[in-house]
């Protein structure tokens, strides 16, 4: 029985299909594959999509977090209250998105502002995680902009965590692979938007083509400027080639007000070097070992990465990590 192919999504405001549909994008649409010398050249270009998070409309209700958990069937821990509203306290392998709350006393207006930002994967056009990744095919990017982790290929080394300028991926102690927001690639594949955007009560989170989202952002920025937020603007940082998750900020001149949003995110130089000879020569062994393991996995017994290869790769990535970030905890793996 042939099935219809899903259309490309234009909004998150739709009821998901229950009829069988062939995915609207797949391996043919890959534009980048981690730790692979020959990058794909897709025959078609999907329309780039984006999620726009309008911080000024966000009420911090965590519907995005809840919808994310329910859609992705993750089971985050029930933690404690530690004196703040963030729960869980940080992104986890089971919590791909997190509301972060900042109480900001604006000296110019003498008003308290409660800045609430939905944190999560930015789906960079130039993804640091993918570039840092030594495991072939563990991180991929599609031509619509989605950066996805393929857990079957992940070796759990955690280099993507260091490679990420936004400190997003989290290593699972359960299966030793790294998790982050997929932009609900499985929903986008059937013509839907991400679960968080569908759920968002005030539609502070919207989803569609990146062009539509930029136009929508302009409207919102004009509204904010009319309300006295002269520095309202769009966060679509050039340092990572732009992102497929963007913010409308009331204070776009000071992104770091929003609980650690980088003012000017870039991929660390050492990770960039990864793209060149280092990757193909210095770590070819890892790549080969990993690929080999996949093939083995399918056909015979799994293999292991050699201790030396692992250490060598680790040194490079650790050197790339910014001073205040936590290096990957390989001992937890």
């Amino acid at each position: 029985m042939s099935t219809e192919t899903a259309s490309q999504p234009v909004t998150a405001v739709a009821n998901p299909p229950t009829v069988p549909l062939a995915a609207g994008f797949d391996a043919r649409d890959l534009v980048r594959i981690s730790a692979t010398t020959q990058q794909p050249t897709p025959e078609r270009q999907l329309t780039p999509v984006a999620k726009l998070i309008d911080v000024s409309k966000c009420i911090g209700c965590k519907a995005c977090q809840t919808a994310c958990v329910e859609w992705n069937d993750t089971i985050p821990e029930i933690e404690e209250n530690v004196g703040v509203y963030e729960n869980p306290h940080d992104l986890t392998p089971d919590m791909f998105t997190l509301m972060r709350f900042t109480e900001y006393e604006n000296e110019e207006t003498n008003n308290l502002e409660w800045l609430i930002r939905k944190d999560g994967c930015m789906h960079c056009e130039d993804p640091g995680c993918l570039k840092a990744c030594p495991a072939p095919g563990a991180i991929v990017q599609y031509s619509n902009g989605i950066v996805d982790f393929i857990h079957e290929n992940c070796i759990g080394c955690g280099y993507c965590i260091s490679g990420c300028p936004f400190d997003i991926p989290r290593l699972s102690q359960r299966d030793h692979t790294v998790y982050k927001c997929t932009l609900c690639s499985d929903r986008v594949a059937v013509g839907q938007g991400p679960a968080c955007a569908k759920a968002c009560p005030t539609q502070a989170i919207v989803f569609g083509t990146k062009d539509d989202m930029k136009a929508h952002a302009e409207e919102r920025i004009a509204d904010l400027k009319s309300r006295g937020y002269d520095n309202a603007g769009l966060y679509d940082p050039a340092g990572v080639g732009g992102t497929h998750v963007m913010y409308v900020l009331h204070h776009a001149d000071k992104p770091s007000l929003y609980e650690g949003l980088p003012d000017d995110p870039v991929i660390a130089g050492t990770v960039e070097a990864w793209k060149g000879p280092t990757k193909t020569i210095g770590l070819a062994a890892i790549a080969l070992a990993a690929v080999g393991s996949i093939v083995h996995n399918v056909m015979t017994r799994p293999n292991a990465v050699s201790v030396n290869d692992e250490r060598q790769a680790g040194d490079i990535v650790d050197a790339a990590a910014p001073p205040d970030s936590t290096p990957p905890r390989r001992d937890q793996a």
Partner: protein
Amino acid sequence: MNVDLSRRGFLKLAGAGAVAATSLGAMGFGEAEAAVMAYVRPNKLTATTETRNTCPYCSVACGVILYSKGDRTQGEVAELIHVEGDADHPTNRGTLCPKGSALKDFVRSETRLTEPKIRRPGSDRFEPITWEEALDRIARAMKDDRDANLVTVNDAGTPVNRWTTTGFLAASATTNETAWATFKVVRGIGIVGFDNQARV
């Protein structure tokens, strides 16, 4: 120190059936490898039954769609696997709050009640009881209390038929139809200590 690849999940080839052979070759990868890279989780709602419902929490009354395995209208056992906002609904337009988004967890909560229970005076535990026995005990207790305590007339001789020694708190999220059935029974038997969640 080492990452033990053997502890990783096995390949799930099932989700990658749609990859065309030509694109595999074009990318220069082996088949198994390409299949993995093409893995996007299949739509988990495929072939589920959709049912229109209303969120039972607050009175915004958002439209929700229940996605179930099995169809009650066909006499099947229906297991709820997902709940999502109904994009056709004029109020919520498909959105749901953090409570509504997690409705499945309420329906499938580990602390859902599944059998009648009784806690006997002085006991430190509940024990199972059959519906028959539970309902008989309740009806018997009510009959005895009503017969003993119904105030039939007041001092002035006016019939008042007021039953104050048994009270009833009605719910906040039951349907109108449940409320009407409840109202008929509670008022019909003379209970005046009757209230609902609107009070508090």
